[in-house]
């Protein structure tokens, strides 16, 4: 640990794991680069809060080491761990119950949870209730970004292009399949079928033939009750742009994933990174900066900033784009409010180290928290006194 600023270290809770299909990805993001960078910075006392697949909360500093989660007997060890309790009492406190009970006041929370019950706004809601500063996007942006349809609807209103699509719920589909099939047939094929709320490209299928459609929809409904069917951009240039900031935005490099398969699925994103263990979840198959012409790059950057603002993002987010190589038309595909491993490999390339990245995100979280504090949520009135009683008098 660095020792240049050992006194008065801030207590940072890195929250990861969770009841999500992206549980394991979250463990990686939490460690590479978040915990490693926080430890390297030397200014923080890092408390790793791990939420199991079952939803139990644990905190033990041994969990600051990624190796803890790779142990063969990990589950046995976890069972022996004491589950923590959380307390909302003038901020967020974590408590290890028992005879030797211990309580820690958390100064800042660093959510590192992908997908459901974390990135989808659930955790942000909890942290807002706790009245503790937290890193990254707030509740509203997280909720919208987690829903691919809501994202498309909102940014369309702002005049940002999205690929033509149809969406429906499981109930809609079961009630009147034919209407939806008819609508889908009006789209330009091939198509993509996606669960609306899932990240990391889980359960996404590319449908080229009509016979494949129903099965793809079935797969998507296995993971979500709302799905999206959208046109595929052929001759595709897929790029992504990580952005950081609250009011003043800083852009990372435009990055082009170099797909191995036809589209970028879960195994491409997280399992094929190969060789380099320390690279986080996505370091090896990208072109940084993307080799696209300057004008196109400027448009991507402009659209990126507009999308970030339209959704009310703060802290950090990553905007994914689809570019039609023939027409040069750019579509915003989706917004990710917790980029895997914070896309630290990209930030590093443009001169932002892991330590600089996490410390900047923490200062943005504090800035946001102060802004939120200045908003009046409470309103004193005598309505409660008047309730019931007064009505009776009037009667």
């Amino acid at each position: 640990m660095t020792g240049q600023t050992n006194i008065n270290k801030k207590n940072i809770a890195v929250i990861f794991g969770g009841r999500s299909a992206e549980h394991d990805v979250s463990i990686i993001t939490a460690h590479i680069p978040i915990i490693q960078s926080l430890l390297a910075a030397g200014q923080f006392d890092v408390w790793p809060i791990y939420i199991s697949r079952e939803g139990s909360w644990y905190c033990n500093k041994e969990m600051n080491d990624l190796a803890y989660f790779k142990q063969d007997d990990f589950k046995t060890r976890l069972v022996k761990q004491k589950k923590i309790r959380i307390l909302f009492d003038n901020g967020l406190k974590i408590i290890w119950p028992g005879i030797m009970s211990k309580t820690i006041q958390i100064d800042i929370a660093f959510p590192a949870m992908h997908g459901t019950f974390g990135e989808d706004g659930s955790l942000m809601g909890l942290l807002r209730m706790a009245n503790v500063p937290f890193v990254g996007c707030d509740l509203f942006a997280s909720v919208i970004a987690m829903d691919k349809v809501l994202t498309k609807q909102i940014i369309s209103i702002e005049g940002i292009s999205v690929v033509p699509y149809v969406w429906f719920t499981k109930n809609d589909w079961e009630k009147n399949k034919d209407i939806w099939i008819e609508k889908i047939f009006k789209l330009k094929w091939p198509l993509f079928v996606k669960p609306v709320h899932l990240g990391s490209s889980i359960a996404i299928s590319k449908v080229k033939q009509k016979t494949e459609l129903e099965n793809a929809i079935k797969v998507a409904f296995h993971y979500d009750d709302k799905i999206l069917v959208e046109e595929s951009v052929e001759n595709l240039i897929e790029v992504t742009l990580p952005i950081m900031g609250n009011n003043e935005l800083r852009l990372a490099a435009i990055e082009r994933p170099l797909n191995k398969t036809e589209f970028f699925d879960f195994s491409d994103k997280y399992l094929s990174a190969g060789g380099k263990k320390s690279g986080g979840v996505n370091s090896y198959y990208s072109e940084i900066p993307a080799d696209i012409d300057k004008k196109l790059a400027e448009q991507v950057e402009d659209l990126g900033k507009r999308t970030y603002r339209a959704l009310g993002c703060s802290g950090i987010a990553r905007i994914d784009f689809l570019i039609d190589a023939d027409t040069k038309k750019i579509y915003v595909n989706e917004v990710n409010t917790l980029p895997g491993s914070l896309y630290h490999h990209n930030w590093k390339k443009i001169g932002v180290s892991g330590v600089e990245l996490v410390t900047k995100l923490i200062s943005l979280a504090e800035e946001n928290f102060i802004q939120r504090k200045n908003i009046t949520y409470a309103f004193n009135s005598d309505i409660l006194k008047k309730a019931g009683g007064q009505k009776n008098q009037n009667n």
Partner: protein
Amino acid sequence: MIKKWLSRYNLHYPRFLVYMLQVSEYNIRDYFNWYHKAKNFSNIEQRKRLVKTPKSFFLLTATWIILLFTLVIDFLILRFIVFPFRYILFFLILLSIPYFLAYIIIIPLFILKIFIQMPIEYLIIKKTRQILKNHKAIKIAIAGSFGKTTMREILKTVLLEGKKTAAPPENYNTSMGISKFVKTLKGDEEILIFEMGEYYSGDIEKLCDLVQPDIGIITGINEAHLQKFKKIERTIKTIYELSDFLGEKPVYINGENELARKNAKPNHIIYSRDGIGDLKIKNQKTGLDGTSFIIIKNDKELEIKSGLLGLHLVGSLAVAADIALNFGLTFEQIKNGVSKIEPFDHRLEPKIDNAGVITLDDSYNGNPDGVKAVIEFLAGLKNCRRFYVTPGLVEMGEQTEKIHKQIGKELAKAGIEKTILIKNSVTPYIKQGLKEAEYKGEVIWFDNALTAFAALPYLTVGGDIILLQNDWPDQYQ
């Protein structure tokens, strides 16, 4: 405090004692130096693990037998001896077992050494001496406080261009190491190169007696191993045992090193980055892509380029060129040979990662001259952030404070942006040196090297240079 004291009573304690003997190369003095300083025995095997060899197995078994035997005696006292304070005696013995073990472990080591190791080694060395005596190759011996392995590898690579040359691998620089290497010789070698390790007075003389060298090279003398030699005069005398043995035969002396140069005799050949006698060198340049210079001899010029980093190596390359010319190699062969030399493992060895961070691994370089040369190299690198990472140098004896303060001053002078120091007994002196020289960069402290290494990828960005200077084995704190 109590936790540290209790760490002596863990079940791995006997293993840790054997491990420390092993990393101290079974040198009793080094082992006790470590033992008397060690306070916490809970995590001794940090950098390496105990290597299972017949010797370590024997010692570990013997230690456990002694331990169990002592326990049995202790319980017998409790059971059979009628003594008013027998419980106190029992606990006193029980508590003192770890201390007792740390010393008693020497007895099986001595038994092993006197009755098995020494007779075997005597026979092996006798055979080696005989083989080398009959071997027709010209023998080159390299001695010095630093730079021996680099010189050996440079010489070998260059001479291989025209002569059948062989040299021991790794750090085979003791009688037994050399014997191991000699066993592999085919007999048709024309040149043999030996590196001579010096730890105590008389070491080089013994090795000269074994190898019978024809040519000597003294790469430099400094405070490395001063803790063992106690006085620098003793180091000088030991290294110059090579020159004493060779008498009038050729001895190359590194003129860039003050102590080596001052003690040189008139018949010695002085080399430096400017050349050797009538072999002149000009246009020396160095950078991250290597080192280049021009050799001039008998009005003939030859441009040479090597992958090695740092101008301090030009002198060693010049020695290789001079010896090669004397052996009849052509300019072209020398050029080819030098171009084949790549940076050696952990000796200013450049590595670049995916993000474009360049790490210069100089973790085998732990001597003041080497450090000075590396900082000089870093000073020449522009338009990048430079991270200098070090735990300091070991075995500097009474010169520890002076040498480390000097390192701090040199870092400040070179304008290094970030100095990363590992907390131990010597790095505060580097900090002091930095402060005295009004260092403008940032000093970052880490508890140990492993946490520093883990943090480096998160402290750096593309284009940064990280210099890893020296590495401390577990026996130093």
